[in-house]
């Protein structure tokens, strides 16, 4: 990959830029995830997942992605990784678990890929 600046803005494969269009789509989902900063928000979600999603006005795609714990679907539905990280953390998962899920690898394979980048 050439390291120079480029005037083009070609899409970057496997990467969603969280711009205004995504922000408009994902506001409710991200607002719910932001509420997971608070212990009370996490407890309320875990006690009644569907009710909590409805309280924030999530759409069907967002609710399904939350139910499935599916990171790629959450991103496609307008989720921002910084807020999704709170949902992921609440579930006891870390960024390598989620990296493996998104890339279709086992966690061990994903870690090996990261190690390989050092060589």
């Amino acid at each position, binding site marked *: 990959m050439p390291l120079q600046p480029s005037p083009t803005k070609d899409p970057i494969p496997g990467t969603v830029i969280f711009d205004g269009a995504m922000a408009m789509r994902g506001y409710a989902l991200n*607002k719910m995830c932001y509420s997971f900063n608070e212990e009370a928000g996490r407890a309320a979600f875990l006690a009644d997942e569907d009710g909590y999603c409805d309280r924030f006005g999530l759409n069907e795609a967002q609710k399904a992605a939350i139910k499935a714990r599916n990171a790629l679907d959450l991103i496609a539905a307008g989720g921002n990784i910084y807020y999704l990280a709170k949902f992921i*953390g609440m579930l006891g998962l870390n960024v390598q678990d989620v990296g493996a899920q*998104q890339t279709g690898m086992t966690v061990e394979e994903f870690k090996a890929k*990261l190690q390989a980048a050092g060589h």
Partner: protein
Amino acid sequence: MAKIVGGVTTSHIPAIGNAIAKELFEDPYWKPFFDGYPAVRAWLDKVKPDVAIVVYNDHGLNFFLDKMPTFSVGAAFEYENRDEGWGLQPLPPYPGDPELSWHLIESLVADEFDICSCQEMAVDHGFTVPMSLLWPDRAARTVKTIPVAVNTVQHPLPTPARCFKLGQAIGRAVESYGKDLKVVVLGTGGLSHQLDGERAGFINKAFDLMCLEKIVDEPETLARYSIHDLVRLAGAQGAELILWLIMRGALGDKVSKVHSNYHIPISNTGAGLLVLESA
């Protein structure tokens, strides 16, 4: 008159905070990373800064999308750390220097930077992890802090060129402060990493090494990239390089490299460490 004595760049990912809490300093996975830091602390012991301006990005603790400022400057007496959602015990608050904060804000706004001033501000791992790495002995820590938060959550992010100029303006502001203070500037985050999407786990060693070299004597080269370039070359979260550019801008034209380290991977990240001393 206040003086910027130098700058430090360091990763700030939460995994480091966990590793510190578990004291994994000699763990084979972590040792090559932590071994980079004693030299930084030795330098800090020598220069004895009074204030640290900590340039970081909030990862969804203090700022939400309802009010997402491009550049925020703390102006509080102290800064609280809070639970970010994963249930960790928050660290004790960090003392601020609101008088210097207001001098900075006055100077930056006069200089046409459209700052968001924050008289109350919760700081997240982007701020606390570097503080723990550089000043692990909290009881002995006397340095005051000024958080400078940069939007990396919601595009459009500020351009690398704008960030470098903000750094230069911070440098001018500090140098015009009447009190005799030594100030260190921390550029946190980076280097290449990407958490989201099918491209998760992307790391670009060649780009990272180029950044570690160029930022010393040719930072303008890096300021020429677009945010889109940085996402492409350094990954979605690698755009945090703009935080390093703010630090570098504040240090002035000539700096000397005191120390550096680079290690892949810690968690999903290429971890770059630099100590630069102002000429």
